[in-house]
């Protein structure tokens, strides 16, 4: 009986030892690029699918699958570059697939969260199998930057293929299997190098497994002390880059307490960001004043931020009608990630010091993110990850962009901000656009739909069993395209059955 069980359970299928095992804090929630909104899914989808446009230096849109020309302010023509990639089922990607993908997103029945911004598209034409014409309802200089969604094969879209379970794209990696909800295995098409993503929610366990070489790569989401500890360890290398992921406190504007601008300003003054960065994040971050960092083309060069000033915070609270006997109470939602919880406890303490009672509610990542997405919160902390294009402002702050249409989850409504967004989108002059976006960010800092916190650095800890991994600027997993197993630098692994051109 026991022996029987042993062989049944104990000997699960083991992967070849040259498989790179990548420890993730959160499992990707959706491998269908039409639906994916979380960072892990987006990064994984970059490996599985290819897209029309990417971002280059200064976060300016550059050609990926296609080059484009602006034939008129409302007409963009995209030419697919040769050779066009093959989907994992062998079919060649064509203009029809591009059209089908975007048509599907635009179809309200699909209920894609990306539909909001793309609604600007009036019509998509495919004069040849290499050419796609996008006609817009109104001019939008940012338009090419919106076309970053992975392309799906047209025939499978028509069949209602379950992409979330069985992704099918034309990216450098193809989906192999998902044995259970904690593991996902993909294979590099060029040489069969396999990568297994393992969900390990607990950062300690991730650390220990990396130390034991049970996993080979961990990126972000570790307590800073452990990053320092691991980097000193033989057999593990640390890569680090300045990041642009914007961490913030979000608020429900409909709430009687945090709906008040005065209270939010008090909160902004009550949090000692410099100290938190220095002592808790161990310097692996920089203070943020706006959603975009200064090096982004639309980012503000410098903004007068909120300094740490508890006295001012108390004064603002008093002005809002709160005092010692009548303290505001705020429920603060965060994920169960221990480091996020740790930051939340610090913020709770610092807010308590100025006279705000904070109740922390921590939930499993999926539940937490679900709550935030549908607007169920009073205050929460989260980060915008991998945001490139300024259309984020309409998506996150326009009064029309409340869920499910957009991500204005706190129901922020400011007429001036709305106007600035619209003006910026309609301007075709880049210089003018930049000025408008900078004014908008100053306005946001003034009205505080978010209290900006910081931009955390990216870091990757890689086992020396593997080489060639390069940490990318925005923390995506594209470095997996070059990663190699040290054991056999030349000979490809034997198990490859099919080789792709």
């Amino acid at each position, binding site marked *: 009986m026991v022996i029987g*069980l042993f062989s049944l359970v104990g000997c699960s299928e083991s992967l070849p030892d040259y498989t790179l095992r990548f420890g993730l804090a959160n499992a990707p929630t959706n491998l269908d690029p039409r639906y994916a909104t979380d960072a892990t899914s987006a990064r994984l989808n970059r490996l599985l699918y290819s897209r029309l446009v990417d971002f280059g230096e200064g976060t300016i849109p550059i050609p990926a699958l296609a080059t484009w020309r602006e034939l008129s302010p409302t007409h963009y023509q995209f030419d697919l570059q040769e050779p066009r990639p093959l989907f994992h089922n062998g079919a060649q990607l064509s203009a029809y697939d591009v059209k089908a993908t975007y048509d599907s997103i635009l179809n309200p029945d699909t209920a894609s969260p990306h539909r909001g911004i793309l609604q600007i598209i009036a019509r998509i034409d495919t004069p040849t199998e290499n050419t796609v014409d996008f006609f817009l309802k109104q001019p939008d200089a940012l338009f090419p930057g919106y076309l970053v969604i992975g392309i799906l094969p047209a025939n499978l879209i028509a069949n209602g293929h379950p992409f979330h379970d069985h992704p099918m794209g034309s990216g450098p990696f193809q989906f192999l299997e998902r044995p259970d909800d904690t593991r996902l295995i993909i294979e590099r098409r060029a040489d069969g190098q396999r990568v297994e993503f393992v969900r390990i929610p607990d950062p300690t366990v991730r650390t*220990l497994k990396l130390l034991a070489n049970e996993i080979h790569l961990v990126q972000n989401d570790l307590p800073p002390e452990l990053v320092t500890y691991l980097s000193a360890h033989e057999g593990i290398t640390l890569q680090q880059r300045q990041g642009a992921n914007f961490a913030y406190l979000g608020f429900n504007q409909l709430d009687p307490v945090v709906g008040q601008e005065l209270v939010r300003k008090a909160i902004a003054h009550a949090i000692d960001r410099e100290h938190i960065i220095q002592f808790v994040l161990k310097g692996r971050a920089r203070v943020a004043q706006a959603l975009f960092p200064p090096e982004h083309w639309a980012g503000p060069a410098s903004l007068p931020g909120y300094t740490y000033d508890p006295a001012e915070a108390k004064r603002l609270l008093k002005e809002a009608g709160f005092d010692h006997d009548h303290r505001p109470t705020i429920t603060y939602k965060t994920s169960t990630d221990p480091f996020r919880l740790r930051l939340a406890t610090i913020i709770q303490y610092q807010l308590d010091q100025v006279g705000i009672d904070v109740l922390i509610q921590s939930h499993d990542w999926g539940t937490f993110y679900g709550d935030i997405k549908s607007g169920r919160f009073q205050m929460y902390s989260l980060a915008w990850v991998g945001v490139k294009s300024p259309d984020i402002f309409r998506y996150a702050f326009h009064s029309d962009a409340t869920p499910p249409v957009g991500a204005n989850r706190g129901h922020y409504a400011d007429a001036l901000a709305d106007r600035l967004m619209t003006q910026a989108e309609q301007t075709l002059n880049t210089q003018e656009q930049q000025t408008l976006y900078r004014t908008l960010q100053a306005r946001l800092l003034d009205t505080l739909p978010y209290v900006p916190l910081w931009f955390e650095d990216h870091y990757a800890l890689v086992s020396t069993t593997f080489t060639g991994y390069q940490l990318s600027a925005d923390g995506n997993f594209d470095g997996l395209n070059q990663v190699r197993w040290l054991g056999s630098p030349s000979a490809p692994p034997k198990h490859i059955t099919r080789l792709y051109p």
Partner: protein
Amino acid sequence: MTHFLVTRILSAMLAILGVICLVFLLIHLIPGDPVEVMLGESAQPTDKESLRHALGLNLPLHQQWWIYFKGLLHLDLGTSLFSGRAIVDLLIERIPATLYLSLVSLIVAIGLALPLGLVAAVRQHTPLDYGAMGFALFGMSIPNFWMGPLLILVGALWLGWFPVSGQEGWNSVVLPALTLGTAMAAILARMIRSSVLEVLGEDFMRTARAKGLSSTRAVLHHALPNALLPILTLLGLQLGGLLGGAVITETVFAWPGLGLLMIEAIQQRDYPVVQAAVLCISVTYIMVNLLTDLLYAWLDPRIQFTTD
């Protein structure tokens, strides 16, 4: 014998029925509106209404119970709110891991407790006895959520003999089974000791010794078999502690069993899954106790008429 069999099985079925009722009521224990708790305070009214319908919470209580019960009869436990999968499938996926861990832990526990308890009983009031019982007291008092991390530190990191966590490879069960088994071994050792002591005091043992049997032989051939019977029943009862402790141990070691499923479901506020996990573990516990009782009755003819 038949009478005992029937009453014992009937009472086990009654207990299962009671467990079903309590587990069913669990969702109604959630203070306030359970739907609101699951979706959050400021959920959209339409979302709330559809979840309420999906869970059948809009019906009168007795009707809800009847639907729940009918579902159980068809092995339909509903669907997970989080993953949208059938809960029965989730359970089937997780049961083998918990079963496997429990069995290995049980072996560890017996393997530790038997020698300890025996030695303590045979050498009563000697340093060996005090040592064994002191160890047992320690084992009872070490919380498994502290012992687990310490074992990981030593066994997985310093020695590198075992995987840190999860279920990978044959040796990954060692550390969780040690964690879970030690606590049980401690209680078991004390029981074995008192049970053997009782037997040692009985007449036939004195006769055996008087006949010149060596004390080792006397203990192994006469005392132990007689002491094992009551231990068997106690073992069944202790399994409850084992199954409860498995929840924490599985969490510490990320062991993909029912306990971890339950904790994850609690964090995800996926109450139908919590209900199902509790139900599954409790029914297992009842069945195991029923089996040990029947085994006991079968092995010991004296039990036949004492049905209470």
